[in-house]
């Protein structure tokens, strides 16, 4: 957080709880709210405060709305992925979304793409998605991810970030799914425990659509801390 804004002394984070007594103590009418608010948690309000200005009945988080106060939390991007068991070691490009709404894939099958809008490797939550062409026009042949389907449970995957740190994962599943069967919301989830998903194509090839029928999807979970 690279903000310079002063934090007000009133950074409060409680839930909505009515403490009518506090108001009563300083002379305001101690009647209940006209439109009662069901309190999520009713804090005890037993002791009458000494005469003082009214105090808030709830603690509401308050922050500056200035543009400078906006958090810019860009994760450290991955730069390479390696699978020692298969002799795979690919550089990674951060990628986004194609015009047709599908994930962008680096044209060369010797480069992998990391979905930069999702979790980065090494984060606490969500799935990091890294994909590469199984074969491509630009490479005029097969790429290293053609071997993904040979991965076995427990095989290790290392992802190195731009800052030089490496995050190790162990394969938990390798599946080939017909593309229409894949629930992409689950694959690209930004919630839940962190994991790594490697994706390429497989199945048979539909010449007319110039597309494979399946996606090969490898799921891996962090090893150690």
């Amino acid at each position, binding site marked *: 957080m690279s903000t310079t804004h002063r934090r007000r002394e009133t950074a409060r984070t409680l839930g909505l709880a009515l403490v009518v007594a506090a108001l009563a103590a300083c002379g305001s009418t101690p009647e209940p709210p006209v439109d009662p608010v069901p309190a999520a948690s009713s804090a005890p309000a037993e002791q009458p405060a000494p005469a003082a200005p009214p105090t808030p009945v709830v603690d509401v988080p308050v*922050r500056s709305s200035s543009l400078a106060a906006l958090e810019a939390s860009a994760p450290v991007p991955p730069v390479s992925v390696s699978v020692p068991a298969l002799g795979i070691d690919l550089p990674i490009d951060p990628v986004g979304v194609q015009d047709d709404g599908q994930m962008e894939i680096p044209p060369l099958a010797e480069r992998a793409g990391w979905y930069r809008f999702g979790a980065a490797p090494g984060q606490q939550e969500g799935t990091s998605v890294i994909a590469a*062409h199984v074969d491509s026009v630009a490479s005029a042949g097969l790429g290293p991810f053609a071997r993904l389907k040979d991965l076995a449970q427990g095989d290790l995957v290392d992802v190195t970030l731009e800052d030089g740190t490496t995050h190790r994962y162990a394969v938990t599943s390798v599946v080939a799914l017909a593309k229409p069967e894949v629930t992409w919301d689950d694959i*690209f989830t930004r919630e839940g425990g962190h994991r790594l998903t490697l994706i390429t194509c497989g199945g048979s090839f539909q010449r007319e659509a110039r597309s494979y029928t399946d996606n090969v999807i490898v799921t891996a979970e962090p090893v150690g801390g």
Partner: protein
Amino acid sequence: MRTRLLAAGTAGAAGLALALVGAAPALADNHEAKLSVLHGVPGLTVDVYVNGDLTLDDFAPGDLAGPLDLPAGTYTVAITASDAADDSEPAIGPIDLPLEGGMNYTAVAHLDADGAPTASLFTNDISTTAAGEGRLTVRHTAAAPAVDVLAGDTAVITNLSNPDEEVLNLPAGTVPAAVAATGTTEPVIGPVDVAVTEGVNTIVYAWGSLADDNLDVAVQTIEGLHSAPAGVPSGELGLAAGSSTGTAWMVGAALLAAAGGAALVARRQTAVTANR
């Protein structure tokens, strides 16, 4: 003092249409509403009372409070001087805020176009954004005439009046935005770089007073609106197909067919790299 309460910030036509189309909330509990409060009246530290109870103490201009999760219902809000003993003599209000379950609102204390303090309730668009896109909401809550919002030299929003809003869905990225009197290009605010983050509704308020030379920008963000890409098209030739014949022919044909696309592919690659 008379105040105005707007059901949904009578938006410019496009923005309102979007807000209505996208009214189905993606994430919210249907029995609760989310409410944020923005203080956009320069030079006036206030207290905010909700249903007669002090809720925000010494709320300063430019501050954003919340969001609060509130049971659906109507809330009465009064804004007083910061040293008031109660809400019997509000500076703004009291106004009623009808909050529907599952919706996300921002109540804004601000100046009207003529410089009088008022309050508006805006409904925030929390519908899902397309993969790769973010949402930019622009709200005019300043004592100023109608404005255009410029991105570079191009007016992306025209003739936006206090207290209206406009909603844009844009590819994620940074927008160099400036605000100018409508029909002109001389900025009265900015240019400032506004990050349009993927899956986030970034709400930008113009507030303050043109006459008093204290126009400013306030920003609120609502996260978690993202959606997944529609697929992963990660093969082009058929070389990895389980059982195929004549692959050599297919490679040749595919290469020929794609030759024209190669330059395009190369450009896309460059663009991706440039985005890093």
